[in-house]
């Protein structure tokens, strides 16, 4: 029996019972609480959630880039059959940038300011392949061109601060793709960009799967982005997975009150923007102050007696939901509103 009903047949990355905690003066703080997920070959998985829900920590754990000596990482991260958490640092380093590449939110600070774009791409190529400087430079220029950067040879000689945000992110992607990784982790790659550029970058990421056959973990807090490009969606809240499933299902029938709230706050892609987007009242709990039972409880309009316990992930077909409303079947919101949250019915 597959661990995850919606997981594609060919699994590239399989994260099992991952927990991340940090030792501190106040004791051990649990940031990621026992999450499992997988990514299939050529699949785009979106991880979505408000800031602070643990998306970045999850992705950094996969890359083994949590350098804090107080971090405790438990579970297993199986990539192409090997547990990344058991690799020695050298093996892990060979994998990083070559097999698994990562791009970050702000390419301005994510690139070393004193080297040209071309130099930085070359550096990554030469870290993993036996290539002359010239060949590496030629490859870098070629990649920049493929990423839609005009006059790539010239762009390669520019420093990060000399490019626009969109161009920098393209350069970042070019760098990430320089060794044909099987998995690209993109942590909020479009958050710092304006809407048109955002669409172009998403288009680029989509092309990547088409042209390079890579899988992508796309981290975002924006349901609009999720709607644009993902195959599957995983919604995180307070270090846990609250809902997961194929994108069309989750978008058509969001089944966790948190997912519902996130979906209501998408700005419409076309037409007039509302003056103020509805957002979920309140804010996510600090890792030190997570409530017992369902972590979403304090902000949930639908909470009822069972919510004092931690809800497991209930499965319904390809969709999974960590909410007691979904214990027997996916919730019917009109009905639930009518009986549990009359105030929220409007």
């Amino acid at each position, binding site marked *: 029996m597959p661990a995850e009903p919606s997981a594609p047949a060919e699994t590239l990355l399989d994260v099992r019972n991952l927990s991340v905690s940090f030792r501190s003066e106040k004791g051990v703080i649990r940031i990621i609480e026992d999450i499992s997920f997988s990514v299939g070959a050529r699949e785009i998985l979106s991880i979505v959630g408000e800031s602070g829900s643990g998306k970045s920590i999850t992705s950094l754990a996969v*890359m083994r*880039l949590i*350098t804090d*000596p107080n971090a405790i990482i438990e579970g297993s991260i199986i990539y192409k059959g090997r547990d990344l958490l058991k690799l020695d640092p050298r093996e892990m*380093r*060979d*994998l*990083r*940038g*070559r097999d698994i*590449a*990562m791009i*970050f939110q*702000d390419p301005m*600070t*994510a*690139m*070393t*300011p*004193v080297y040209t774009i071309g130099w930085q791409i070359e*550096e*990554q190529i030469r*870290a*993993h392949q036996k290539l002359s400087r010239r060949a590496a430079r030629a490859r870098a220029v070629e990649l920049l061109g493929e990423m839609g950067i005009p006059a790539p040879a010239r762009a390669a000689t520019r*420093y990060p*601060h*000399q490019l626009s945000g969109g161009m920098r992110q393209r350069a970042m992607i070019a*760098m990430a793709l320089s060794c044909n990784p099987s998995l690209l982790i993109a942590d909020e790659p479009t958050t710092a960009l304006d809407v048109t550029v955002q669409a172009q970058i998403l288009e680029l990421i989509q092309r990547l799967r088409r042209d390079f056959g890579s899988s992508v973990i796309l981290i975002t807090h924006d349901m609009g982005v999720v709607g644009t490009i993902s195959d599957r969606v995983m919604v995180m809240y307070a270090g846990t997975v609250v809902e997961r499933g194929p994108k069309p299902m989750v978008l058509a029938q969001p089944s966790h009150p948190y997912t519902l709230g996130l979906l209501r706050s998408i700005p419409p892609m076309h037409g007039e923007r509302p003056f103020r987007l509805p957002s979920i009242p309140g804010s996510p709990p600090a890792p030190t102050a997570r409530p017992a039972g369902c972590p979403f409880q304090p902000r949930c309009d639908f909470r009822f007696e069972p919510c004092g316990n931690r809800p497991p992930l209930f499965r319904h077909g390809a969709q999974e939901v960590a909410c007691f409303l979904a214990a027997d079947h996916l919730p019917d919101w009109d009905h639930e509103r009518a009986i549990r949250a009359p105030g929220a019915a409007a």
Partner: protein
Amino acid sequence: MLLPTLRRLAEMIFVMLGISIVVFLIFFATPGADPAARIAGRNATPEILAQVRHSFGLDRPLPVQYALVMERLFVTRDLTSFVNRGQRVIPAVIEATPVTLSLVLGAAVIWVIFAIIVGMVAAATRGGITDRTLMFLGLVGVSMPVFWVGSVMNLVTQSRFHNTWLFHWVPGLGYTPLLLHPWVWFKSLVIPWVTLAILYIGLYGRVLRANLVEAYQEDFIRTARAKGLSETRIMFRHALRTSLITFVSMFGLDFGALVGGGALLTEVVFGLPGVGRLTYEALQNLDLPFIMATVMYSSFFVVVANAIVDIAYAWLDPRVRDAR
């Protein structure tokens, strides 16, 4: 790159001009003080005063006086000491310069190498016992007065342990020109170099460590790791390279100040006849022409060092280059 450099050099000449005017005004136009009286010394007869006044052009307008003084400083270079009559000031400064340069250059080589080692090792082991030990030693180095370190060094290497295998090679105090006896030059400078370098190793080591630790918090270090680079490469090519910007600017300024006479105490303790010691003696005797010449000399080095720092800064940091 060329144009800003030229612009910076032109600026430098301007600053030098300004400094020379200020120095001139302080020495020759301070209200209530008659420079002629100071030049002529105590108990001078009115005739001598008049003669001094005439020879320095003190009876003429200030701009002319300024031009005359500058002429005597830089063109004819015949300004003489008030204390040791007949001793020419400029040749004395020029003669002292190689001594100071030898001292400061050697110390700088030592302090740069060791400070980079200390800073990198401490940053690489941050929080650990090695880091703490190094930072403590650095603090000790910064806190020890150079005069005291020099005296202890002398005591140890010149008398207490001079006759042991460890220090019998140390020659007596004083300076031997490099071109005369290179080996003696080297041997006689080792102890002064180390003495002068200790303070700066401590200071630079601590600053570099702080910069490196800060650099390690930067996003681009995370990117470098995500690229699969080795820790050594990340340290040298990314963390150190970006931290060097502060390091280099500090170095330029300290080096300029030291060559400009800041190594005074070290020169005095080790009997090195450098510019610092010259200034020290001139100050003790209130030897006006000497003070003026050494002040001009040191400001020259500080200004040149500043300009070089600016140029190096732009060269090290492309963001600075573009801000021009």
